[in-house]
């Protein structure tokens, strides 16, 4: 399995990338970690004319606190997130999720931004980005704009990123002491595409949860928030009845999609199981 021939440019600046993108359009593909793209090229399921290697763009790197936000650059690798003290402190669910992404050798190259812009429905980061209420910072020739994660994933493998735009990074509101979270993933083998997963984040005061985000992945064509379950739980004291109601709501509101070995019915069932487990875990914290 050898990729078809292509040209290769190692870009030195964002303007250069944007110029190349507008010049070559869909004949060019951006390469960050390349862990999805290169497999696709090896199998000749995509034959771009030009590969634009953006891994040298320092603007897209780094994890830092900027004002009220945790900045995670698009080129930050899964491994860097897994090990980052800042992430552990201000967006801990990301550290919990990272080990579920494939395997170390892939996490060493695969990037936060690459995963977000592919918008694979089975991927961990899109769901997490919604759960932590991240804002995508994207740049095009017209300049920079910000897109809420909850508005970013519009359809199967389709995001709000315009073809001539590039994801610079994300701004994540800093988690405070009240934040509780639970990351739940069921995969047949560690590192596989999930059968079903849940990124749950909430603020907790006593038994009362607020600002709930229950975002499921690998159950539909995009990561999907259980909006009704969230509003049921918001500002209520969590108890067995409320959990049962939330579970029922989540199962009812999410239209699940079968995959190669798991039926839609099984995924609906698992949606409830994961939510119940997450709520109990967060309650126990």
């Amino acid at each position: 399995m050898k990729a078809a021939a292509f040209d290769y440019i190692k870009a030195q600046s964002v303007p250069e990338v944007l110029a190349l993108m507008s010049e070559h359009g869909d004949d060019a593909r951006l390469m960050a970690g390349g862990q999805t793209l290169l497999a696709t090229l090896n199998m000749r399921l995509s034959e771009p004319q030009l590969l634009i290697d953006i891994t040298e763009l320092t603007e897209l790197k780094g994890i830092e606190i900027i004002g009220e936000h945790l900045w995670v650059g698009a080129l930050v690798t899964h491994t860097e997130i897994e090990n980052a003290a800042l992430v552990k402190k201000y967006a801990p669910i990301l550290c919990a999720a990272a080990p579920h992404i494939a395997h170390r050798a892939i996490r060493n190259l695969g990037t936060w931004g690459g995963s977000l812009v592919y918008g694979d429905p089975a991927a961990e980061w899109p769901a997490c980005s919604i759960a932590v209420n991240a804002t995508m910072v994207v740049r095009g020739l017209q300049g920079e704009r910000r897109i809420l994660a909850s508005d970013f994933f519009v359809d199967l493998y389709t995001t709000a990123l315009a073809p001539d735009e590039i994801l610079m990074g994300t701004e994540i509101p800093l988690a405070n002491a009240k934040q509780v979270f639970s990351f739940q993933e069921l995969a047949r083998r560690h590192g596989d595409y999930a059968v079903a997963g849940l990124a749950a984040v909430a603020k907790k005061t006593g038994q009362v949860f607020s600002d709930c985000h229950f975002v499921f992945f690998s159950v539909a064509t995009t990561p999907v928030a259980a909006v009704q379950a969230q509003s049921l739980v918001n500002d209520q004291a969590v108890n067995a009845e409320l959990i049962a109601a939330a579970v029922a709501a989540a199962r009812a509101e999410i239209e699940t999609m079968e995959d190669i070995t798991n039926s839609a019915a099984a995924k609906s069932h698992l949606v409830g199981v994961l939510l119940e487990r997450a709520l109990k875990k967060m309650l126990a914290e």
Partner: protein
Amino acid sequence: MNKPNDLAGLVLDPVTADQRYIGESEPRHSAKRLLEGQGTYVDDLQFPRMGHVVYWRSPVAHMRIIQIHSAAARNLPGVLAVVDGVQMATICKPWVATLSHLAGMKSAPQHALAIERACWQGEPVVAVVAESRAQAEDALQLIEVEWEELPAVVSMLTALDPATPLIHPELGDNLCFTRSLNVGEVDAQFAAADVIAEATFGFGRHTGVTLEPRCQIADYNPGDHRLTVYHSQQAPHMMQDLYCRQFGLAESDVHVICKDVGGSFGIKVHAYPDDFATVGLAILLGRPIKFVADRLESFTSDIHAREHQVKGRIAATKQGDILAFEIDDLTAIGPYSMFPRTSAIEGNQVVNLVGGPYKHQHYRAQLSVVFQNKTPTCQYRGVGHPIACAVTEALVDLAAEKLQMDPLVFRQRNVIPDDAYPCSGASGIKFEILSHEQCLRTIEKMMNYTELRQEQATLRKKGIYRGIGFAALIELTNPSAAFYGVGGARIASQDGATARLDPSGVVSIMVGVGEQGQGTEGIYAQIAADAVGVPIADVRIITGDTAVTPYGGGTWASRGAGIGGEAVLLAAQALQENILRLAGAILQRDTAELLVRRSQIIDKATGQAVLPFSEIGRIGYFRTDTLPNDFKVDLMVTRHYAQRDYPFIFTNGVQASYVEVDLDTGFVTLLKHWAVEDCGRVLNPMLVDEQVRGAIVQGIGGALYEECLYDDSGLLRNGNMADYLVPMANEMPDIEVAHVQTPTASSQLGAKGAGEAGTAGAPAAVMNAINDALMPFKVKVFEQPITSEKILHALGKI
């Protein structure tokens, strides 16, 4: 005398004087280079003028080839040739894979490259050769084949229906082979039985996924018309014979070399269409041609196995005695029987092996082997054993449950007693000597069975559902000519070894059985070192070269240790005799006064070393002038061994699996696995342990993860390593292995095979453990792989 010892089995008498290596966990010295990146696998070889071939394979299950357009491909830079089936057929004969002792078996002629029709997704149709692999793939994209899709036979359940189209009209139906066996009075026994249990079992299609794909380099020298094939293969002499027959070459002009092989498991013991096509290209182009299957084509072109549906019944008395088994096995093998071993063996094995460990006398089996338009199936590690064992052991558990007997106690009551041998099983298979009772005693101790049951009960009260599953098993090893030879397949059951004392005193051993990672070369070195009497560091093993080693069958049916090892022992013993005779001549002493110890000739009387091997080598090769005129002895001897006492030497063992089932998710966690293995004399416990463990994990793969999934039109939906789930480290349990040693008397070594029993027993043990965990809910799952989806279904949660 061999002394019984309950946990260790028999403590065996040594095979040789001064035995230092046989029976010890000696590391595989020859494998160190593999850990240093210094192996030599086929893809590591490069030759001048070497071309790389890729194959255009049928994208559909069944099609008529209308026209092939290759001009654009031919014109690409680097492209050397584009060859179709018609051109290939001018130098390579078609074949039909049947065995005469499988009465009534039929198949159709198959070509190296498809002509007129392609009959499965992945069948090679056009060969494209270029100077580099990438160029060949560039050209492959420009090959345009006009094809018309033909109706495909997909489901084996309807393959024999009159409405179903025939894959090979000339055969009259889609039936490859059928067999009925009826022993004793099965109906009467079931009529009289106090307890009858029955179930229908499903087994998904597997494939081997050797980490190193199938690969070869064929090099034909037009000058002397000699063909050399570097092949990642288990049976070099078999391939030599097939190449010379299909291409009309003289046996002496075909040279097959197997260097390091990156895993085989039966995947690499067959003759594939692309094997012949690659050789044909080397002949047509007069240059070396390399074929390395990529992973995507491996999934559709490597053999598959184990697509079976089995209906089974068991009858027992209320006292707990098994009376009879009955099975009906339906299996599908793809559009052709695989060359040359045929694809009817697996089903035939299921018929032979069901009920194998038990002493019932009544047994009925029906087997139907049907054609379909999917990748051909054939012998893959365990050949039929995993199916027969899963069916048998699940039925045994069902009967025990109805009788409210402990499944271990029920087995202990019903296995053929250790003092009953030699005897025959109900299916007619001959047992020399087995040790079911001792193995069951051993595993009971190993796993602290009583405590484990208590733990299970305690946890159950807390809502944690764990299960314990057993599998008693038999495994066919050390085959005689009854397997293939009698059926007309030219696959040697005998094997040979040559032992040579080199001038420096080093011993070189050349063996017909090769190494694919099991450690065969390691045990041969152990045997040779002990039998000749040298340090193991002074032994060199040479395998996998038809021009160098004695003629042999290679690696299959767990014959490496029992057959190849015995040949090495005989050759090494003969070499030591000759060394002693030469020493006698040199020292002018009666050889009876001398013996060999660690590369030295020792004076029996004084215990003094009187002559080193190096001196024997020097005189034997360079100073024969100093020896008496009438004296002659060879420092290189060859011996062959064929197991002729029984059709096969059966081994036995028992496995236990401990699992936890998550009732909410249907996920299964494998907590622990135990195996007691009796492969006769254990030549190297460390190697046998890892053979058993690797085989168990391969069995677990089929029980929980692996299945080739096809859609309704016969297209593979998960033919890649992200979606075809092989077992990885994280989900696999620790596996404890213990040995019982009941040597076979059919050889001096007493060794039986150990490579496949793990695969035979694991699926049964795991399935039984899962169903034991589900017992409180009165539900069972008999469809492998057992996925969370199936468990949630069984539990009524979805």
